[in-house]
């Protein structure tokens, strides 16, 4: 009798795990859309890198600040779009998120990765940087990284939008978007984003911009439908 019970249990486990494998396969709905601004965004100023010649010589024309980056047709770049509610927390992927300091700028300007995902910070420059993520929910640290140093390896155990700066080069600002699941995107030059492979359900989609804060919208996905969600940020000229 006991042996039979075991068999039944085993069968149930097999069926459940099989069904989970099927649902884990990339399928489901898609949310896509465009991020735009209305109003006049702050004019981005050219960065004076004359005090850091090794960086300055990498540019023919001085690069501008990146607090607001726009594209044609009022497109807003560098907006993190993610699911803030409705999706389960996910385990971190094994691939590390890479943040590079090159030409005294951050590449990418906004880096999104998951809670407990490995973060690698590289210095490609011929000058020292200090990496100072101003975390409020996670622990704040500040490390020096002279040229030729190995990558700084770290991870964050709580979701947070963290402003990152280099105190030596005051124009260097970036963002770490530490998120709870893998459903996120960062708007490109055309302001477009796509969140694919969403299982049916009710979600809150949040868009975060470093200067304009965040906005949220609710969306319900059934089956493999594609929905369009768009966000418009009010731009301030100063």
């Amino acid at each position, binding site marked *: 009798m006991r042996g039979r019970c075991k068999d039944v249990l085993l069968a149930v486990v097999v069926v459940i795990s099989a069904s989970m494998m099927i649902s884990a396969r990339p399928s489901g709905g898609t949310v896509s859309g465009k991020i735009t601004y209305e109003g006049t965004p702050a004019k981005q100023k050219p960065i004076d890198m004359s*005090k850091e010649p090794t960086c300055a010589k990498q540019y023919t024309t001085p690069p501008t600040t990146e607090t607001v980056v726009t594209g044609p047709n009022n497109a807003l770049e560098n907006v993190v779009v993610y699911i803030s509610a409705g999706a389960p927390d996910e385990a971190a992927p094994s691939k590390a998120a890479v943040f590079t300091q090159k030409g005294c700028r951050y590449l990418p300007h906004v880096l999104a990765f998951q809670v407990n995902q490995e973060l690698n910070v590289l210095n490609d420059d011929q000058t020292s940087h200090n990496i*100072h993520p101003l975390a409020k929910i996670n*622990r704040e640290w500040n490390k020096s990284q002279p040229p030729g140093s190995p990558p700084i390896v770290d991870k964050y155990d709580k979701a947070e939008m963290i402003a990152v700066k280099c*105190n030596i080069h005051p124009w260097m600002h970036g963002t770490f978007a530490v998120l709870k699941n893998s459903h996120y995107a960062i708007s490109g030059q055309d302001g477009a984003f796509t969140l694919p492979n969403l299982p049916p359900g009710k979600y809150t989609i949040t868009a975060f911009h470093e200067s304009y804060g965040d906005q949220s919208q609710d969306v319900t996905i059934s089956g493999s439908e594609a929905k369009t969600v768009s966000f418009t940020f009010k731009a301030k000229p100063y």
Partner: protein
Amino acid sequence: MRRMNVAKCLAGIAALLAAPLLVSGQQAESHIGKVNGHADTGKQLYFRYCWGCHGFRGNGSGENWMPTGSYPDSPYLNIQPRDFVTATFKCRSTPTGTLPTDQDLYNSLVRGLINSNMPSWVTLTDQNRADLVAYIKSFSERWKTDKAGAEINVPAEPALTVQSIQHGKELFTKLECWKCHGPEGRGDGPSASTLTDSNDQPIRPYNFAAGSRFKCGTTNHDLYKIFMTGLDGTPMPSFADVIKPDEAWDLVHYLRTLQISHKSPELALWEGTKEGAEIVKAQRVRGTPTGSGVNQ
């Protein structure tokens, strides 16, 4: 039988209810050597001595502080008192991004922080200070989830040599300490004027020429810890990943020679060499011993 079950159940509920009390009991204490501090006593002391600056919520917004640019135009403290809620502390013996030890907090109370309005609380008793440390820790949730970091290992100081000072000088250039602290350590490097702390308040890099004490102590051992742990919440980063322990002592020896108004074995040895004598002489001509009149 049934009564037994009920009794067991009640005992279980009692245990559950008591658990948080036990946990909070643990946080409400501090341990400094043989002295155990208690938050309830510390609370009374805090509301007598500390709250005017650090505020009744412990967030550094007491009525003695006003942010730069507020009205009336900053007649009070020009450096924001420590915010105990974020629990980010400058003076630690633990790596950057970790909580300090009880002893670290206690030491800051004994010492006070130079170039700020935080005085030395040496007039209180050991027990008073331990009690205050226990109470200060109750402001932040972090003490409930995180433990203090592991103290960094400071190897024994090697003998002072001219080579050590020279190597320290090379490190000062290579690690670009001068970007903020200036080529002569006067706190006047190219990035100095742009620095802000983590609350966006302006902050100055340390001027070695102006005095003998550091923010986090007076000894070579303290100086070693300052750049290996970093001063969290300020632009001063940790160099623990980029300086080897023996090299760190070389840097300590060189930094001492920048304190031209402070008599030290390092400065004496450095001035005894031809190279060092010329450098120190040139540094002395520029400033007054107090550092006043020096462009910073």
